[in-house]
């Protein structure tokens, strides 16, 4: 009896640790699968209370999680920062988006003729947390590649629209700078594509074609998934040097993972604090949208 119980607990612990690793991984593509089936994961153990905060919040609002570097953390600062972020979010809608989504940002520009400027592009990178959260948009306009860095909580930003909500295979798409221009060309007057509610965010598994060397970075060292023809441009020396700098053991480095992520318990605490506010904002936005869609036919008629 006693032995049985011990084995059982051991197994449970094992399962827990396994699950933890899955939820802690930083690759968004793998998470997409995990996010898609949150109920199935939480199902075992009927006695376990369902968490109030939806599990996908840490992907939708990644900037609410502070920098995991211990030396820089302070609970009061983080709290004040979150309050300011919520204040800003009450003013404008900052929608859910990922690296690979296509956004349109309208911002006040003192230099522009109409004092606003709108830029459409694919989000190639998202970084930093708190009020410093920023993202980079890239587009090719008139055969000229252009990139703009925006801060998410900048009060001069008037509107952030998500024209196409999707993910790509990689965490950042800097390789689009070395890809053929058609892979980062997006129409400025593109209309927003709507996803049905409840569907998981689709992963676009497009593979881009790179231009020949010279490149801006050594892409062969970065294990990119979204590149089609990298092998074509590699010689043996490149492959060898790339193999030399690989660190395949790092995925087993639990300490490194621990240091570079916010523990799940803390994440729950943080989101429990802001959850109700974010949820009401979401609902409000949805209601407003429905109203808008209801009004439109009237005007047409």
């Amino acid at each position: 009896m006693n032995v049985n119980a011990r084995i059982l607990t051991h197994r449970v612990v094992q399962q827990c640790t396994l699950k933890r690793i899955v939820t802690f991984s930083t690759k968004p593509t793998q998470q997409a699968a995990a996010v898609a089936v949150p109920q199935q994961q939480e199902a075992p153990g009927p006695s376990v209370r369902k968490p109030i905060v939806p599990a996908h919040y840490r992907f939708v609002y990644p900037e609410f999680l502070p920098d995991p570097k211990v030396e820089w953390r302070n609970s009061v600062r983080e709290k004040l920062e979150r309050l300011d972020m919520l204040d800003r979010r009450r003013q404008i809608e900052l929608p859910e988006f990922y690296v690979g989504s296509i956004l349109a940002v309208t911002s006040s520009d003192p230099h522009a003729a109409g004092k606003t400027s709108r830029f459409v592009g694919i989000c190639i990178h998202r970084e930093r947390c708190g009020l410093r959260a920023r993202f980079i948009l890239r587009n090719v306009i008139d055969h000229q590649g252009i990139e703009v860095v925006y801060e998410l909580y900048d009060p001069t930003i008037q509107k952030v629209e998500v024209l196409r909500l999707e993910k790509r295979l990689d965490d950042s798409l800097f390789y689009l700078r070395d890809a053929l221009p058609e892979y980062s060309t997006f129409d400025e007057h593109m209309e927003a594509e709507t996803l049905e509610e409840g569907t998981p965010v689709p992963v676009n598994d497009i593979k881009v074609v790179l231009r020949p060397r010279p490149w801006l970075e050594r892409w062969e060292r970065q294990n990119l998934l979204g590149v089609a023809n990298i092998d074509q441009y590699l010689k043996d020396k490149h492959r060898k040097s790339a193999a030399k700098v690989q660190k395949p053991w790092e995925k087993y480095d639990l300490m490194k993972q621990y240091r570079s992520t916010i523990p799940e318990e803390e994440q729950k605490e943080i989101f429990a604090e802001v959850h109700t506010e974010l949820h009401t904002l979401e609902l409000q936005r949805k209601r407003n949208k429905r109203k808008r869609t209801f009004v439109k036919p009237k005007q047409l008629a």
Partner: protein
Amino acid sequence: MLRTVICDLARLRLSGSTSPAAVLVTQVREKGHLSRPRLRNPYWFIRKERTQTDDLVTGENRSFIKEVVHDTYGKPALIKGIQTYEQKQLIKTPVAPTDIEPWTPAVRRCGLIARKIGQYPLWLKNGERVRTTLLQVVDNHVVKYIPPGEYTPAQRPRVKHLDRYGCVLVGAESTNPALLTKEYCGIFRDSGVMPTKNLARFIVSPQAALAPGTPLNVGHFRVGEFVDVRGKTVDHGFQGVVKRHGFKGMPASHGVTKTHRRPGNIGGGGEKGRVWPGTKMPGHMGNRWRIIKGLRIWRINTKYNVMWVQGSAVPGSTNGLVYIYDTVLPLRKPKEAPPFPTLYETEDDAPEDIWYDQVHNFKDETITYKPE
């Protein structure tokens, strides 16, 4: 000493002619250069932490000690985001003394002890982004005031006319007295303040004297004013010349061997063939007291006692202690009277967040520019 020798010689000469009893010699002792008064630390520089021995105190006794602490100083509480005790014996809102002399620009006010809790950007109303550092004033109480006559430190601070100034001893972050030495707790005995982890002295004019037990809050400063912040810089240890002084180093290749991050030449030969004083060389970097002057206060939060000051170059690491003073820069000194000698807080008149009028409040609408 010389004089005694001369006296001895005189006595010898005299002794030949007259009787020795007739000459009366007084010995004079003079102060030599070795018998200067020692430079002593101020009396509040005492060992703080008690050696934690595994003394055999029973659980009952331990809880009794706890009870006594709570009876005298109040229960543990979270005041303004800081873990502290509700200090019952202190008058929370002492009535401002009636006989205050008015503030003049020449007066030195008391400062505050704060912690640097991080940094994040704020935006101005014209859309400009400013980087700010957050300083949290941590549970400050006046422990003691030493009037000008009595304040004669052995190590004189570099303040002109020090004899005209007094000194205010301020404590920050109260802690369990059972962890501290008896002598350290003795500093707080007459003030009625709970023993604190940190102590600092501020040199003040006698007009700006504060009564022991007065709580100091972030309201001591006003939004838009300028402050000086003193802190101990991050300790980098022994560092080379590239990191310590920003030298360029030498090329990584092109025939360079073993000289990539070295300083190169440190002096010429010839007549002055030596290393000049002040030459930048490798050495210990950081862990020094530094003052950064003239930082504007952009915003103040009275609920958590936090102020946002300009810039991200405040000395010290995050969660490190800093001291905040009125600025000494002549053009940035306050024109109008700040709260003097400090803000005697009334409970509910202060708004929670105070923004400087140039700063964009996150609750306001998006910044737009009007077309001409």
